[in-house]
Protein backbone atom coordinates (compact mmCIF):
# COMPACT_ATOMS: atom_id res chain seq x y z
CA UNK A 1 0.00 0.00 0.00
CA UNK A 2 2.79 2.34 0.96
CA UNK A 3 4.49 1.62 -2.33
CA UNK A 4 1.41 2.63 -4.30
CA UNK A 5 1.08 5.91 -2.42
CA UNK A 6 4.77 6.54 -2.98
CA UNK A 7 4.42 5.85 -6.69
CA UNK A 8 1.44 8.15 -6.87
CA UNK A 9 3.41 10.90 -5.20
CA UNK A 10 6.29 10.35 -7.60
CA UNK A 11 3.97 10.58 -10.61
CA UNK A 12 2.38 13.79 -9.31
CA UNK A 13 5.79 15.33 -8.66
CA UNK A 14 7.00 14.23 -12.10
CA UNK A 15 4.03 15.82 -13.84
CA UNK A 16 4.32 19.03 -11.85
CA UNK A 17 8.03 19.30 -12.53
CA UNK A 18 7.54 18.68 -16.25
CA UNK A 19 4.90 21.42 -16.35
CA UNK A 20 7.27 23.63 -14.44
CA UNK A 21 10.03 22.95 -16.96
CA UNK A 22 7.74 23.72 -19.88
CA UNK A 23 6.61 27.00 -18.39
CA UNK A 24 10.07 27.92 -17.12
CA UNK A 25 11.17 28.08 -20.76
CA UNK A 26 8.21 30.33 -21.51
CA UNK A 27 8.96 32.48 -18.47
CA UNK A 28 12.58 32.80 -19.55
CA UNK A 29 11.81 33.69 -23.15
CA UNK A 30 9.22 36.24 -22.13
CA UNK A 31 11.41 37.94 -19.53
CA UNK A 32 14.51 38.00 -21.70
CA UNK A 33 12.40 39.30 -24.56
CA UNK A 34 11.04 42.17 -22.53
CA UNK A 35 14.48 42.94 -21.12
CA UNK A 36 15.69 43.27 -24.71
CA UNK A 37 12.68 45.50 -25.54
CA UNK A 38 11.11 42.70 -27.57
CA UNK A 39 7.96 40.77 -26.77
CA UNK A 40 9.02 37.13 -26.75
CA UNK A 41 6.56 34.46 -27.90
CA UNK A 42 3.24 36.02 -28.90
CA UNK A 43 1.67 33.76 -31.51
CA UNK A 44 0.57 30.47 -29.95
CA UNK A 45 -2.36 31.17 -27.68
CA UNK A 46 -2.92 34.37 -25.75
CA UNK A 47 0.49 36.08 -25.49
CA UNK A 48 2.11 32.81 -26.53
CA UNK A 49 0.89 30.90 -23.49
CA UNK A 50 0.70 27.62 -25.40
CA UNK A 51 4.19 28.03 -26.85
CA UNK A 52 5.86 25.46 -24.54
CA UNK A 53 3.27 22.86 -25.51
CA UNK A 54 3.83 23.56 -29.21
CA UNK A 55 7.58 23.29 -28.64
CA UNK A 56 7.15 20.01 -26.81
CA UNK A 57 5.03 18.51 -29.58
CA UNK A 58 7.47 19.72 -32.17
CA UNK A 59 10.58 18.32 -30.51
CA UNK A 60 8.75 15.05 -29.88
CA UNK A 61 8.04 14.54 -33.57
CA UNK A 62 11.37 15.79 -34.88
CA UNK A 63 13.72 13.35 -36.54
CA UNK A 64 16.23 11.84 -34.13
CA UNK A 65 19.57 12.10 -35.90
CA UNK A 66 22.53 10.07 -34.66
CA UNK A 67 25.83 10.90 -36.38
CA UNK A 68 27.46 7.95 -38.14
CA UNK A 69 30.79 8.38 -36.39
CA UNK A 70 29.27 8.85 -32.97
CA UNK A 71 29.89 6.45 -30.12
CA UNK A 72 26.37 5.12 -30.27
CA UNK A 73 25.65 3.69 -26.78
CA UNK A 74 27.27 6.64 -25.02
CA UNK A 75 25.55 9.07 -27.34
CA UNK A 76 22.17 7.57 -26.50
CA UNK A 77 22.90 7.34 -22.78
CA UNK A 78 24.25 10.86 -22.21
CA UNK A 79 20.97 12.82 -22.17
CA UNK A 80 19.32 10.16 -20.05
CA UNK A 81 22.15 10.29 -17.51
CA UNK A 82 21.66 14.05 -17.33
CA UNK A 83 17.93 13.88 -16.87
CA UNK A 84 17.92 10.96 -14.43
CA UNK A 85 20.56 12.52 -12.23
CA UNK A 86 18.65 15.80 -12.07
CA UNK A 87 15.27 14.15 -11.49
CA UNK A 88 16.68 11.96 -8.73
CA UNK A 89 17.78 15.00 -6.75
CA UNK A 90 14.15 16.10 -6.67
CA UNK A 91 13.28 13.22 -4.37
CA UNK A 92 15.09 14.65 -1.34
CA UNK A 93 13.81 18.23 -1.63
CA UNK A 94 11.41 19.18 1.16
CA UNK A 95 8.74 21.36 -0.47
CA UNK A 96 7.00 21.90 2.85
CA UNK A 97 6.97 20.32 6.27
CA UNK A 98 6.66 16.62 5.53
CA UNK A 99 6.26 17.18 1.77
CA UNK A 100 9.31 15.20 0.80
CA UNK A 101 9.60 11.91 -1.06
CA UNK A 102 12.70 10.59 0.70
CA UNK A 103 13.56 12.22 4.00
CA UNK A 104 17.09 10.87 4.17
CA UNK A 105 19.80 12.10 6.51
CA UNK A 106 22.39 12.73 3.80
CA UNK A 107 20.11 14.86 1.62
CA UNK A 108 22.62 17.59 0.85
CA UNK A 109 25.38 15.11 0.07
CA UNK A 110 23.00 13.20 -2.17
CA UNK A 111 22.25 16.31 -4.16
CA UNK A 112 25.95 17.04 -4.60
CA UNK A 113 26.49 13.52 -5.86
CA UNK A 114 23.61 13.74 -8.30
CA UNK A 115 24.51 17.15 -9.71
CA UNK A 116 28.06 15.90 -10.31
CA UNK A 117 26.64 12.90 -12.14
CA UNK A 118 24.64 15.26 -14.34
CA UNK A 119 27.83 16.90 -15.52
CA UNK A 120 29.02 13.42 -16.53
CA UNK A 121 26.11 13.42 -18.94
CA UNK A 122 27.39 16.63 -20.48
CA UNK A 123 30.97 15.39 -20.68
CA UNK A 124 29.91 12.09 -22.21
CA UNK A 125 27.69 13.86 -24.72
CA UNK A 126 30.63 15.98 -25.77
CA UNK A 127 32.83 12.92 -26.12
CA UNK A 128 30.32 10.67 -27.85
CA UNK A 129 29.21 13.13 -30.51
CA UNK A 130 32.60 12.90 -32.22
CA UNK A 131 32.42 16.53 -33.26
CA UNK A 132 34.91 19.28 -32.49
CA UNK A 133 32.34 21.66 -31.06
CA UNK A 134 30.81 19.05 -28.81
CA UNK A 135 34.21 17.87 -27.71
CA UNK A 136 35.28 21.38 -26.72
CA UNK A 137 32.00 21.76 -24.88
CA UNK A 138 32.58 18.55 -22.96
CA UNK A 139 36.14 19.60 -22.16
CA UNK A 140 34.99 22.89 -20.79
CA UNK A 141 32.31 21.23 -18.75
CA UNK A 142 34.97 19.04 -17.19
CA UNK A 143 37.13 22.04 -16.31
CA UNK A 144 34.08 23.79 -14.89
CA UNK A 145 33.16 20.81 -12.74
CA UNK A 146 36.58 20.53 -11.13
CA UNK A 147 36.70 24.22 -10.32
CA UNK A 148 33.14 24.68 -9.07
CA UNK A 149 32.10 21.47 -7.37
CA UNK A 150 34.68 22.09 -4.65
CA UNK A 151 33.69 25.69 -4.07
CA UNK A 152 30.04 24.71 -3.94
CA UNK A 153 30.61 21.89 -1.48
CA UNK A 154 32.73 24.09 0.73
CA UNK A 155 30.26 26.97 0.65
CA UNK A 156 27.58 24.77 2.16
CA UNK A 157 29.82 23.45 4.93
CA UNK A 158 29.02 26.63 6.85
CA UNK A 159 25.34 25.79 6.67
CA UNK A 160 26.04 22.25 7.84
CA UNK A 161 28.05 23.59 10.76
CA UNK A 162 25.30 25.96 11.84
CA UNK A 163 22.44 23.50 11.52
CA UNK A 164 24.43 20.44 12.55
CA UNK A 165 22.71 18.25 9.98
CA UNK A 166 22.76 17.17 6.35
CA UNK A 167 19.04 16.46 6.33
CA UNK A 168 17.39 19.19 4.30
CA UNK A 169 14.23 19.31 6.41
CA UNK A 170 16.37 19.61 9.54
CA UNK A 171 18.33 22.48 7.96
CA UNK A 172 15.10 24.38 7.29
CA UNK A 173 13.81 23.74 10.80
CA UNK A 174 17.09 24.91 12.29
CA UNK A 175 16.62 28.29 10.60
CA UNK A 176 13.28 28.95 12.24
CA UNK A 177 10.51 30.98 10.73
CA UNK A 178 11.84 34.51 11.32
CA UNK A 179 13.84 36.52 8.79
CA UNK A 180 16.75 36.79 11.23
CA UNK A 181 16.89 33.04 11.51
CA UNK A 182 17.74 32.63 7.84
CA UNK A 183 21.29 31.66 7.08
CA UNK A 184 21.46 34.40 4.47
CA UNK A 185 22.91 36.92 6.94
CA UNK A 186 25.30 34.79 9.02
CA UNK A 187 26.39 32.92 5.89
CA UNK A 188 26.61 35.86 3.47
CA UNK A 189 30.06 34.82 2.23
CA UNK A 190 28.84 31.27 1.84
CA UNK A 191 25.80 32.50 -0.06
CA UNK A 192 27.95 34.58 -2.41
CA UNK A 193 30.17 31.60 -3.20
CA UNK A 194 27.20 29.28 -3.46
CA UNK A 195 25.35 31.59 -5.81
CA UNK A 196 28.23 31.86 -8.28
CA UNK A 197 28.95 28.13 -8.04
CA UNK A 198 25.26 27.47 -8.60
CA UNK A 199 25.31 29.46 -11.86
CA UNK A 200 28.34 27.49 -12.99
CA UNK A 201 26.86 24.18 -11.88
CA UNK A 202 23.73 24.64 -13.95
CA UNK A 203 25.71 25.81 -17.01
CA UNK A 204 23.92 29.13 -17.08
CA UNK A 205 25.16 32.47 -18.37
CA UNK A 206 27.75 33.86 -17.51
CA UNK A 207 29.25 30.38 -17.10
CA UNK A 208 27.56 28.63 -20.01
CA UNK A 209 30.89 27.63 -21.48
CA UNK A 210 29.96 24.03 -22.34
CA UNK A 211 26.95 25.24 -24.25
CA UNK A 212 28.36 28.42 -25.74
CA UNK A 213 25.80 29.25 -28.39
CA UNK A 214 27.90 31.95 -30.01
CA UNK A 215 31.27 30.22 -30.19
CA UNK A 216 30.63 26.47 -29.95
CA UNK A 217 27.23 26.32 -31.69
CA UNK A 218 25.50 24.89 -28.61
CA UNK A 219 28.60 22.96 -27.50
CA UNK A 220 27.79 19.53 -26.18
CA UNK A 221 24.34 19.38 -27.78
CA UNK A 222 25.45 20.37 -31.29
CA UNK A 223 24.86 16.88 -32.65
CA UNK A 224 21.67 16.22 -30.73
CA UNK A 225 18.25 16.70 -32.22
CA UNK A 226 14.61 16.10 -31.50
CA UNK A 227 13.66 14.54 -28.21
CA UNK A 228 17.23 13.99 -27.03
CA UNK A 229 17.95 17.67 -27.34
CA UNK A 230 14.76 18.38 -25.45
CA UNK A 231 15.88 15.99 -22.71
CA UNK A 232 19.07 18.03 -22.26
CA UNK A 233 16.90 21.10 -21.99
CA UNK A 234 14.68 19.49 -19.39
CA UNK A 235 17.74 18.44 -17.43
CA UNK A 236 19.04 22.01 -17.52
CA UNK A 237 15.80 23.48 -16.26
CA UNK A 238 15.32 20.83 -13.59
CA UNK A 239 18.90 21.49 -12.58
CA UNK A 240 18.09 25.17 -12.25
CA UNK A 241 15.12 24.31 -10.10
CA UNK A 242 17.08 21.90 -7.90
CA UNK A 243 19.86 24.42 -7.37
CA UNK A 244 17.33 27.18 -6.67
CA UNK A 245 15.66 24.87 -4.14
CA UNK A 246 18.98 24.17 -2.43
CA UNK A 247 19.61 27.91 -2.25
CA UNK A 248 16.15 28.41 -0.80
CA UNK A 249 16.50 25.60 1.72
CA UNK A 250 20.00 26.41 2.89
CA UNK A 251 19.93 30.20 2.90
CA UNK A 252 16.40 31.56 2.61
CA UNK A 253 14.63 29.40 5.18
CA UNK A 254 12.84 26.95 2.89
CA UNK A 255 9.10 26.71 3.32
CA UNK A 256 8.94 29.18 6.21
CA UNK A 257 7.34 32.51 5.47
CA UNK A 258 5.79 35.47 7.27
CA UNK A 259 2.60 33.46 7.83
CA UNK A 260 1.54 29.88 7.24
CA UNK A 261 -0.59 29.25 4.16
CA UNK A 262 -3.37 26.84 5.10
CA UNK A 263 -4.20 25.03 1.86
CA UNK A 264 -0.90 25.09 0.04
CA UNK A 265 2.02 24.89 2.50
CA UNK A 266 4.82 24.98 -0.12
CA UNK A 267 3.73 28.45 -1.31
CA UNK A 268 6.67 30.30 0.25
CA UNK A 269 9.07 27.67 -0.97
CA UNK A 270 7.77 28.02 -4.53
CA UNK A 271 7.91 31.80 -4.38
CA UNK A 272 11.51 31.76 -3.19
CA UNK A 273 12.46 29.24 -5.87
CA UNK A 274 10.92 31.48 -8.48
CA UNK A 275 12.83 34.42 -7.11
CA UNK A 276 15.99 32.44 -7.79
CA UNK A 277 14.77 31.47 -11.24
CA UNK A 278 14.11 35.12 -12.01
CA UNK A 279 17.64 35.96 -10.86
CA UNK A 280 19.01 33.27 -13.19
CA UNK A 281 17.12 34.76 -16.12
CA UNK A 282 17.91 38.32 -15.17
CA UNK A 283 21.62 37.51 -15.07
CA UNK A 284 21.33 35.75 -18.40
CA UNK A 285 19.80 38.84 -19.94
CA UNK A 286 22.55 41.06 -18.56
CA UNK A 287 25.97 39.46 -18.44
CA UNK A 288 28.31 38.29 -21.19
CA UNK A 289 30.10 34.95 -20.96
CA UNK A 290 33.25 34.49 -18.92
CA UNK A 291 36.37 33.36 -20.70
CA UNK A 292 37.61 29.85 -19.99
CA UNK A 293 40.70 30.94 -18.06
CA UNK A 294 38.84 33.69 -16.20
CA UNK A 295 36.41 31.06 -14.99
CA UNK A 296 39.16 28.82 -13.67
CA UNK A 297 40.78 31.88 -12.05
CA UNK A 298 37.57 32.83 -10.33
CA UNK A 299 36.93 29.30 -9.15
CA UNK A 300 40.34 28.47 -7.76
CA UNK A 301 41.70 31.84 -6.68
CA UNK A 302 38.59 33.53 -5.33
CA UNK A 303 35.74 31.16 -4.53
CA UNK A 304 37.63 28.28 -2.89
CA UNK A 305 39.68 30.55 -0.57
CA UNK A 306 36.54 32.53 0.27
CA UNK A 307 34.65 29.35 1.07
CA UNK A 308 37.52 28.13 3.28
CA UNK A 309 37.61 31.45 5.13
CA UNK A 310 33.87 31.15 5.62
CA UNK A 311 34.22 27.68 7.12
CA UNK A 312 36.93 28.78 9.55
CA UNK A 313 35.00 31.90 10.58
CA UNK A 314 31.77 30.00 11.06
CA UNK A 315 33.45 27.27 13.06
CA UNK A 316 35.27 29.77 15.28
CA UNK A 317 32.17 31.86 15.95
CA UNK A 318 30.08 28.80 16.63
CA UNK A 319 32.70 27.46 19.03
CA UNK A 320 32.85 30.80 20.86
CA UNK A 321 29.09 31.42 21.03
CA UNK A 322 27.82 27.91 21.40
Amino acid sequence: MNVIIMLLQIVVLFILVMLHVAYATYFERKIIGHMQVRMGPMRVGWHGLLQPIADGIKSFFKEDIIPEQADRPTFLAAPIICLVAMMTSLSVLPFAKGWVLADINIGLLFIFAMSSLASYGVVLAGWASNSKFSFLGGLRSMAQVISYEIAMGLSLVGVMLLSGSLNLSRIVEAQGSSVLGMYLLPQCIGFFVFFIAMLAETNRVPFDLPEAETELVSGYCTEYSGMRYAIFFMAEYIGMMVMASIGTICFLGGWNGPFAVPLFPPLWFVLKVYLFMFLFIWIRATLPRYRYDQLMDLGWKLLIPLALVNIVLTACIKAMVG
Partner: protein
Amino acid sequence: MQIRYKPKRNWLAMLFQTEILQGMALTLRRLFSRPITRQYPEEKPQIKTGFRGQHALVRDPRTGLTKCIGCMRCAVVCPSRCIRIRSHKMKEEWNRRVIDDYRIEALRCVYCGFCEEVCPVNAIVLTEIFEYGAYDRQALFFNMEQLLGNWDRFAARMNHPVEEYVNPFWRPRGLPEQNLPAAKRMPVSAEWSGDQQVVGKKWRQHHGSEQSCQGGVDV
Protein backbone atom coordinates in the same frame (compact mmCIF):
# COMPACT_ATOMS: atom_id res chain seq x y z
CA MET B 1 44.87 60.46 -26.67
CA GLN B 2 45.35 57.64 -24.25
CA ILE B 3 42.72 55.01 -23.84
CA ARG B 4 42.38 53.42 -20.45
CA TYR B 5 40.85 50.03 -20.97
CA LYS B 6 40.50 49.25 -17.31
CA PRO B 7 39.15 52.21 -15.43
CA LYS B 8 40.38 52.42 -11.85
CA ARG B 9 37.82 51.33 -9.32
CA ASN B 10 37.92 51.90 -5.63
CA TRP B 11 37.78 48.87 -3.37
CA LEU B 12 34.12 49.33 -2.51
CA ALA B 13 33.12 49.25 -6.17
CA MET B 14 35.36 46.22 -6.57
CA LEU B 15 33.85 44.41 -3.63
CA PHE B 16 30.23 44.91 -4.59
CA GLN B 17 30.80 44.70 -8.36
CA THR B 18 28.90 47.93 -8.96
CA GLU B 19 29.32 47.63 -12.71
CA ILE B 20 27.42 44.37 -12.77
CA LEU B 21 24.75 45.93 -10.59
CA GLN B 22 24.47 48.88 -12.99
CA GLY B 23 23.97 46.48 -15.86
CA MET B 24 21.35 44.56 -13.91
CA ALA B 25 19.52 47.79 -13.13
CA LEU B 26 19.49 48.66 -16.81
CA THR B 27 17.97 45.33 -17.85
CA LEU B 28 15.43 45.56 -15.04
CA ARG B 29 14.37 49.01 -16.23
CA ARG B 30 14.04 47.67 -19.77
CA LEU B 31 11.82 44.87 -18.47
CA PHE B 32 9.17 47.45 -17.65
CA SER B 33 9.59 49.60 -20.75
CA ARG B 34 7.31 49.17 -23.72
CA PRO B 35 8.66 46.76 -26.36
CA ILE B 36 9.28 48.25 -29.78
CA THR B 37 8.06 45.14 -31.59
CA ARG B 38 5.40 45.69 -34.22
CA GLN B 39 3.09 42.68 -34.42
CA TYR B 40 3.19 42.83 -38.19
CA PRO B 41 0.15 41.28 -39.81
CA GLU B 42 -2.11 42.84 -37.19
CA GLU B 43 -0.28 46.15 -36.88
CA LYS B 44 0.69 47.55 -40.24
CA PRO B 45 3.61 49.92 -40.49
CA GLN B 46 2.79 53.54 -41.21
CA ILE B 47 3.72 54.15 -44.85
CA LYS B 48 5.28 57.54 -45.49
CA THR B 49 4.98 59.54 -48.72
CA GLY B 50 7.49 58.44 -51.28
CA PHE B 51 7.52 54.81 -50.20
CA ARG B 52 8.73 52.68 -53.09
CA GLY B 53 6.60 49.56 -53.33
CA GLN B 54 4.79 47.61 -56.00
CA HIS B 55 5.20 48.78 -59.60
CA ALA B 56 2.29 50.21 -61.55
CA LEU B 57 1.65 51.90 -64.86
CA VAL B 58 -0.55 54.95 -64.47
CA ARG B 59 -3.78 54.59 -66.41
CA ASP B 60 -4.42 57.64 -68.56
CA PRO B 61 -7.94 58.83 -67.77
CA ARG B 62 -8.45 60.06 -71.37
CA THR B 63 -7.47 56.94 -73.29
CA GLY B 64 -7.85 54.33 -70.58
CA LEU B 65 -4.41 53.00 -71.54
CA THR B 66 -0.90 53.64 -70.32
CA LYS B 67 0.68 57.06 -70.54
CA CYS B 68 3.97 55.50 -71.66
CA ILE B 69 5.42 56.86 -74.91
CA GLY B 70 8.09 54.22 -75.37
CA CYS B 71 11.09 56.54 -74.93
CA MET B 72 12.99 53.67 -73.26
CA ARG B 73 14.55 55.95 -70.64
CA CYS B 74 13.39 53.78 -67.78
CA ALA B 75 14.68 50.62 -69.46
CA VAL B 76 18.07 52.28 -69.98
CA VAL B 77 18.41 53.78 -66.53
CA CYS B 78 17.29 50.68 -64.67
CA PRO B 79 20.33 49.36 -62.76
CA SER B 80 19.00 45.83 -62.57
CA ARG B 81 17.71 45.81 -66.17
CA CYS B 82 14.34 44.51 -65.17
CA ILE B 83 12.23 46.58 -67.59
CA ARG B 84 11.44 45.32 -71.11
CA ILE B 85 9.36 47.50 -73.44
CA ARG B 86 7.99 46.47 -76.81
CA SER B 87 6.45 49.15 -79.03
CA HIS B 88 5.76 49.99 -82.66
CA LYS B 89 5.10 53.16 -84.67
CA MET B 90 1.58 53.88 -85.74
CA LYS B 91 1.98 55.15 -89.35
CA GLU B 92 -1.61 56.44 -89.58
CA GLU B 93 -1.27 58.64 -86.50
CA TRP B 94 1.85 60.72 -87.29
CA ASN B 95 4.26 57.99 -86.24
CA ARG B 96 2.94 57.86 -82.69
CA ARG B 97 4.53 55.10 -80.63
CA VAL B 98 2.14 52.49 -79.35
CA ILE B 99 3.21 50.25 -76.51
CA ASP B 100 2.63 46.57 -77.20
CA ASP B 101 3.96 45.31 -73.94
CA TYR B 102 5.68 46.64 -70.85
CA ARG B 103 7.23 44.02 -68.60
CA ILE B 104 8.81 44.36 -65.20
CA GLU B 105 10.49 41.49 -63.40
CA ALA B 106 9.66 42.46 -59.85
CA LEU B 107 12.05 39.84 -58.51
CA ARG B 108 15.02 41.60 -60.05
CA CYS B 109 13.95 45.13 -59.20
CA VAL B 110 15.96 46.89 -56.51
CA TYR B 111 13.30 49.58 -55.89
CA CYS B 112 15.68 52.48 -56.57
CA GLY B 113 12.93 54.56 -58.18
CA PHE B 114 15.12 55.77 -61.07
CA CYS B 115 12.46 54.74 -63.60
CA GLU B 116 9.85 57.04 -62.10
CA GLU B 117 12.38 59.86 -61.89
CA VAL B 118 13.39 59.74 -65.56
CA CYS B 119 9.95 59.09 -67.01
CA PRO B 120 9.02 62.30 -68.86
CA VAL B 121 5.28 61.65 -68.74
CA ASN B 122 4.98 60.15 -65.27
CA ALA B 123 3.79 56.84 -66.63
CA ILE B 124 5.52 54.48 -64.24
CA VAL B 125 5.18 54.68 -60.50
CA LEU B 126 6.22 52.70 -57.46
CA THR B 127 3.08 52.57 -55.34
CA GLU B 128 2.77 52.35 -51.60
CA ILE B 129 1.58 48.74 -51.73
CA PHE B 130 4.22 46.46 -50.30
CA GLU B 131 2.39 43.21 -49.57
CA TYR B 132 2.35 41.37 -52.85
CA GLY B 133 4.32 38.24 -52.22
CA ALA B 134 3.35 35.21 -54.27
CA TYR B 135 4.04 31.51 -54.29
CA ASP B 136 5.12 31.34 -57.94
CA ARG B 137 7.56 33.44 -59.90
CA GLN B 138 5.15 33.92 -62.76
CA ALA B 139 2.91 36.07 -60.60
CA LEU B 140 5.79 38.48 -60.04
CA PHE B 141 6.70 38.97 -63.71
CA PHE B 142 4.34 41.86 -64.40
CA ASN B 143 3.16 42.52 -67.93
CA MET B 144 1.35 45.65 -69.07
CA GLU B 145 -2.15 44.50 -68.10
CA GLN B 146 -0.99 43.49 -64.66
CA LEU B 147 0.84 46.78 -64.17
CA LEU B 148 -2.24 48.76 -65.17
CA GLY B 149 -4.25 46.54 -62.85
CA ASN B 150 -1.80 47.35 -60.05
CA TRP B 151 -2.51 51.01 -60.62
CA ASP B 152 -6.27 50.45 -60.52
CA ARG B 153 -5.93 48.61 -57.24
CA PHE B 154 -3.76 51.35 -55.81
CA ALA B 155 -6.13 54.06 -57.07
CA ALA B 156 -9.05 52.28 -55.43
CA ARG B 157 -7.20 52.37 -52.09
CA MET B 158 -6.41 56.07 -52.33
CA ASN B 159 -8.44 58.50 -50.26
CA HIS B 160 -8.19 61.49 -52.56
CA PRO B 161 -9.11 61.59 -56.30
CA VAL B 162 -6.70 59.90 -58.70
CA GLU B 163 -6.16 63.07 -60.73
CA GLU B 164 -4.59 64.79 -57.74
CA TYR B 165 -2.10 62.02 -57.01
CA VAL B 166 1.49 63.22 -57.20
CA ASN B 167 4.35 60.89 -56.47
CA PRO B 168 7.30 62.83 -55.06
CA PHE B 169 9.69 60.80 -57.19
CA TRP B 170 8.05 62.10 -60.34
CA ARG B 171 9.82 65.37 -59.76
CA PRO B 172 13.58 64.79 -59.81
CA ARG B 173 15.15 66.65 -56.96
CA GLY B 174 17.84 69.27 -57.40
CA LEU B 175 16.94 70.22 -60.98
CA PRO B 176 15.85 73.75 -61.93
CA GLU B 177 12.26 74.17 -63.04
CA GLN B 178 13.00 74.96 -66.71
CA ASN B 179 15.06 71.79 -67.18
CA LEU B 180 12.12 69.59 -66.37
CA PRO B 181 9.70 68.26 -68.98
CA ALA B 182 6.28 69.86 -68.86
CA ALA B 183 4.61 66.94 -67.14
CA LYS B 184 7.11 66.96 -64.34
CA ARG B 185 6.65 70.62 -63.36
CA MET B 186 4.17 69.68 -60.74
CA PRO B 187 3.69 70.98 -57.26
CA VAL B 188 5.31 68.68 -54.72
CA SER B 189 5.37 69.46 -51.03
CA ALA B 190 8.32 71.58 -49.93
CA GLU B 191 10.07 68.74 -48.18
CA TRP B 192 10.39 66.92 -51.49
CA SER B 193 11.68 69.70 -53.73
CA GLY B 194 14.52 72.19 -53.85
CA ASP B 195 16.65 73.07 -50.88
CA GLN B 196 14.09 72.16 -48.28
CA GLN B 197 14.02 68.52 -49.29
CA VAL B 198 14.21 66.34 -46.27
CA VAL B 199 16.62 63.47 -46.70
CA GLY B 200 19.07 61.53 -44.59
CA LYS B 201 19.91 63.06 -41.23
CA LYS B 202 17.46 65.89 -41.77
CA TRP B 203 14.68 63.33 -42.26
CA ARG B 204 15.33 61.76 -38.93
CA GLN B 205 15.25 65.17 -37.23
CA HIS B 206 12.13 66.08 -39.14
CA HIS B 207 10.28 62.94 -38.16
CA GLY B 208 11.92 62.64 -34.78
CA SER B 209 8.79 63.52 -32.87
CA GLU B 210 6.64 60.92 -34.66
CA GLN B 211 9.28 58.23 -34.26
CA SER B 212 9.61 58.65 -30.55
CA CYS B 213 5.89 58.41 -29.89
CA GLN B 214 5.76 55.25 -31.98
CA GLY B 215 8.66 53.43 -30.38
CA GLY B 216 8.73 54.67 -26.85
CA VAL B 217 12.43 53.95 -26.41
CA ASP B 218 14.22 56.70 -24.58
CA VAL B 219 17.84 56.62 -25.61
